[in-house]
């Protein structure tokens, strides 16, 4: 034993997981099929970016003043108003709806189930699709945008609140029951106070999202600054389009920083 080199015992290599191999193969296959479906080619990217194009040209002589023109300013204000109203409505409605879709808030199983399916459907519809739907239903204008933001907020908020509700402390609920609270009283005094700080911070976040979303709603005719974006796109006025986009997202960026700071204080 003395002159022999010490035996190194390596841990045994974990077995190759069949699951990992299958997922890997599926992912590679999916990539090839998808890439051919969309006609992906590096050459196309290279060629298209290499050429001078009107959009890049527009960025070079960007019109900074566009945001302050009469029409754009009005469209921007409408965007802001829609975001505020949509957030207020959606946030208010989301609290009872998400309470009713949890076991604590709604002991009645069938209605809970129906509500959950409904919420899942709402969550699978993106903001612009809501806007398109309401434009068809109630006509072009701010009302369609408002309704779209309402439902979009509902989707965002209910998901976030549901996760918060999963993690609440059961103690206060038992205390409320022990003190003879009715169901509503229990929710009011034992559940809502626990989620309120998180709820407020979600509401702020939802406002940020809505501000961003309301910029694109106008592309389908649902009011706000997107109306101007669609107009410039049609007219191919890229200098003005860039001016509006850059200015608007500066505003969004400032609002986001502000909201992140406030949210940190809230929670």
């Amino acid at each position, binding site marked *: 034993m003395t002159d022999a080199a010490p035996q190194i015992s390596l841990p045994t290599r974990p077995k190759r997981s069949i699951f990992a191999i299958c997922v890997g193969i599926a992912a590679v296959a*999916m990539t090839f099929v998808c890439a051919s479906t969309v006609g992906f080619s590096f050459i196309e990217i290279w060629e298209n970016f290499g050429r001078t194009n009107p959009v890049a040209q527009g960025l070079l002589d960007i019109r900074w003043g566009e945001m302050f023109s009469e029409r754009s300013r009005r469209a921007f*204000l409408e965007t802001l108003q829609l975001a505020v109203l949509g957030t207020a409505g959606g946030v208010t409605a989301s609290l009872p709806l998400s309470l009713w879709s949890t076991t604590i808030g709604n002991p009645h199983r069938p209605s809970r189930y129906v509500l959950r399916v409904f919420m899942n459907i709402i969550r699978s519809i993106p903001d612009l699709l809501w806007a398109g739907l309401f434009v068809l239903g109630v006509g072009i204008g701010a009302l369609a945008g408002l309704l779209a933001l309402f439902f979009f907020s509902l989707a965002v908020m209910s998901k976030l609140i549901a996760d918060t509700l999963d993690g609440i402390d059961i103690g206060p609920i038992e205390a409320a029951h022990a003190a003879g609270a009715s169901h509503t009283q229990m929710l009011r005094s034992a559940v809502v106070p626990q989620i309120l700080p998180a709820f*407020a911070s*979600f509401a702020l976040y939802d406002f940020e999202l809505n501000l961003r979303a309301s910029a694109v709603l106008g592309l389908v005719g649902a009011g706000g600054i997107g109306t101007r974006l669609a107009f410039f796109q049609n007219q191919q006025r890229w200098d003005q389009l860039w001016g509006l986009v850059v200015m608007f997202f500066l505003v969004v960026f400032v609002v986001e920083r502000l909201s992140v700071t406030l949210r940190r204080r809230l929670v």
Partner: protein
Amino acid sequence: MTAAATRPGGGGSATDRRPVVLPDRARDNFRLGLSLLFAILLVWSWWSVDLKWSRLLEAPADMWRLARVMARNIELSELGELIGLMWDSISMAWVGTLIGGVFALPLAFLAAENLVGRPVAWVVRQLFNVFRAVPEVILALLFVPVFGLSPMAGVLALGLHSIGSLGKLCFEIIENIQRGPIEAADAVGATRLQRLRWGVIPQVAPELTSFLLYRFEINIRASSVLGIVGAGGIGTKLAESIRFKEFGTAGLALIVVVVGTIAVDTVSGAIRRRIVAGPDRSSDDIDPLDQLSPEARIEAETPGSAS
């Protein structure tokens, strides 16, 4: 001390009934101010927004009428074409997610303060923030004139935006790893690359893969509407049917989008959970989202939007 604690000056009375002491109502000027600010904003918006509020009451009836018109005009012969277009959208989302991943994953290592210096991390993070700030639809709007009406514009729009959002999630996960394996790698004389390969990547691989799938689910929602600005997929058909008031097509397309999205969510969600749980399901209830900061977490959980 116990009696005195119930109420100052209230103890020592002859009766057995102790007076009930309610805690002071919490006062918070910060929250009060914030609520007031929002109340003012709300009232201002309510009065000045350019819409007739009476129309809001008619909206449910309008939507009901729309639903009936849609149901009546649905032609099932269009189903095949719509499913094909939805597949286009799903493909756009997949390729877009991969483009995002190819750039975001390496960059995320450069944004983690435990692996690189602070200045480098800061620069890379700001890069992520810029990509994250611009909505996919706006990017697509700008790419369509460059690429023409092909899905490529949409793919690149999704890809660029995903770099930002994926990068942000991934670097937070990388920052949360345990130092042990890195120290072990250093102790046996690993080079920088070997340290990364053996000390860092095995710790974060499941989480990062699951975020990639997560992003894919979110990108499907975005890609199904990108067509509205002409970037391919089912959105193009949807925008057309909205413009020309083809209610039946719009209704059927809506159903295809909802069913397709939920179906992909279900499959992808199951794979994600299995990846994170590991082969023996030892960590069944560990959610990678729990490792994120609250801000990144709510962003990761936001269901689909194109903005």
